């Protein structure tokens, strides 16, 4: 495990030194027309849906139906986009706020719970503690959506049914297994001597963790934050099922779902709302591309 992690993190730094020296890249590849056909097909198939989304968000229903692919320079309108932004019902912009609130809260609580737990697990040699790690790992085998119904019964028993608290509790719990697993792997690469030095200086274990070890865990924390943030932001099943419409809270995904169930044939509502729903994630992706790709890859392969 450790070996794999080291490689993934080292690679970006190692890249410039080796840049372009691989034989495959210098010879043949750039010149072969087959390669450019392959990449051309890739580009068209991946980008055309996004192009359609962006262009049609600023067209009238008639223009969308008649010429979905064209850009009618005179017919472009912000009317439907501003209608979507100010819509009183299933407003995606309102969804941003609530979803962001969920993401931040779940991220913070996950770190607060997973950090110390992972530290205790990583620094213990006891068999019992290793069983705790296995207990958490078993959670990665559970298909969340399929067992969401029993979660409702548990929340009802403890009086948190249909509350934001209940949703947050469920979301935090669902992020714990992978987060703890990644943290434990990382903490084990930090020399124990650092802990001993802190102990001699009189720091307790909580203090040692938060003041000394946690700041050293930055790469692992970034990975976990990216993994959890994107997971919670895109989650549909949990908010949809654990928060009924009567709660009045909509995330981006549940707002789009509720909206489209009502106006599916009105494309002047579909396209602007979908664009609003996708835009923040894509912008975030463009800015943080390398972190996101490596974070999600490490998370999936190891989690």
């Amino acid at each position, binding site marked *: 495990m450790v*070996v*794999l992690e080291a490689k993934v993190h080292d*690679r970006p730094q190692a890249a410039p030194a080796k840049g*372009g020296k*691989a034989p*495959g*890249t210098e*010879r*043949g*590849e750039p010149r072969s027309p087959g*390669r450019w056909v392959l990449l051309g097909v*890739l580009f068209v198939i991946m980008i055309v*849906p996004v192009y*359609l989304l962006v262009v049609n968000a600023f067209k009238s229903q008639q223009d969308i*139906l008649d010429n*979905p692919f064209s850009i009618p320079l005179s017919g472009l309108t912000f009317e439907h986009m501003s209608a979507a932004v100010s819509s009183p019902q299933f407003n995606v912009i309102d969804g941003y706020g609530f979803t962001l609130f969920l993401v931040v809260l779940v991220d913070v609580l996950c770190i607060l*719970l997973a950090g*110390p*737990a992972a530290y*205790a697990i990583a620094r213990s040699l006891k068999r019992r*503690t290793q069983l705790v790690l296995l*207990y*958490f790992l078993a*959670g990665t*085998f*559970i*298909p969340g959506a*399929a*067992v*969401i119904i*029993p*979660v409702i019964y*548990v929340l009802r028993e*403890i009086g948190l049914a249909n509350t934001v608290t209940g949703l947050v*509790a469920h979301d935090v*719990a*669902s992020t*714990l*297994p992978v987060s*703890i697993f990644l943290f434990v792997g990382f903490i084990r690469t930090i020399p124990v001597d650092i802990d001993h030095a802190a*102990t001699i200086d009189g720091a307790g*274990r909580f203090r040692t963790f938060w003041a000394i070890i946690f700041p050293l865990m930055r790469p692992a924390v970034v990975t976990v934050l990216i993994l959890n943030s*994107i997971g919670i*932001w*895109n*989650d*549909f*099943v949990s908010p949809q099922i654990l928060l009924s419409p009567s709660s009045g809270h909509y995330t981006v*995904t549940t707002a*789009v*779902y509720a909206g489209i169930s009502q106006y599916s*044939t009105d494309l002047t509502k579909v396209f602007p709302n979908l664009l609003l*729903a*996708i835009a923040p994630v*894509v912008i975030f*992706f463009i800015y943080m*591309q390398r972190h996101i*790709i490596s974070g999600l*890859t490490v998370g999936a*392969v190891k989690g």
Partner: protein
Amino acid sequence: MVELAELTAGLDRQARRRARLRESAVSFAMMGPAVLLYTVMTVVPVGVAVYLSLTDWDGFSAAAFIGLDNYKHLFDDPSSSEAWYVTALIATAGTVLMVGLGLVYALALKGRSRANSFFRAVAYFPHVISALILGYLWAAILGTNGAINNTLAKFGIEPLGFLFDEQFALISLIGVIVWAGFGFNVVLFVAALQTVPAELLEAAAIDGASKRQINLRIVIPMIAPVVTVATVLNLVGLIRAYDIVVSLTGGGPAGSTQTFTYLILARSFEGTKVGYATAQAVFLMVVSAVLALVVTALRNRQDQAATGS
């Protein structure tokens, strides 16, 4: 940890035991909250699911214990076996296509140039977007009134049943899933390909091996462990497909694209066969646990190979 003064002073057994006790208490305080929340919100629901699966509960009246009856009838009714067929087809066809395309594009984009990393991002970006939203986007493109059919109509061509022909809908669903997911494999494979030593490929080229021979005989076998891991990751992910089904086809037409998870959730809300639906959920959980165990075993073997070399 342990007070050093105490240790050096006497080393008497009592002080040591007290120190160890305090140590355990601190460990417990560190792990306790996480263990508690995880137990209540994740483990207990699974227990509840197992219990409900042994009853005939309908969501309202009192549940009666009926043993393994629900499991005996897991494949009896037509919509369940149909859902299994759909799920298995999505998982296998989707995995084969995603891994295949992933390999093809990883080989084309393995170099460390700016153009390559741009194209990798282009292949990858749907992975960060909610599957629900992607499904709606594709529904607006492939639907009866979608961009493609409206364009075809201008040339007098009959609309194609991307989403309203039963077989075509399943193909469209798999296509969209592959579109959204293969980029993840590209990135995974590129990372593996970049660890293949350049000298090896140079030596093969000097010995007169063609590009295709090098790729098929040397490069792909060298990244085989990563391909295996990706295969199982894709399988585990795809047998749980739900969000994209909701938004792209809604399980239709005529239930022809209902996946297993879709069926489980739909049934739980009808509120008539909750016990039966949870039995299916438990079964799905066992299947994904088996697949996930396989991935763990393969990964451990891979790690051992990595440390051994």
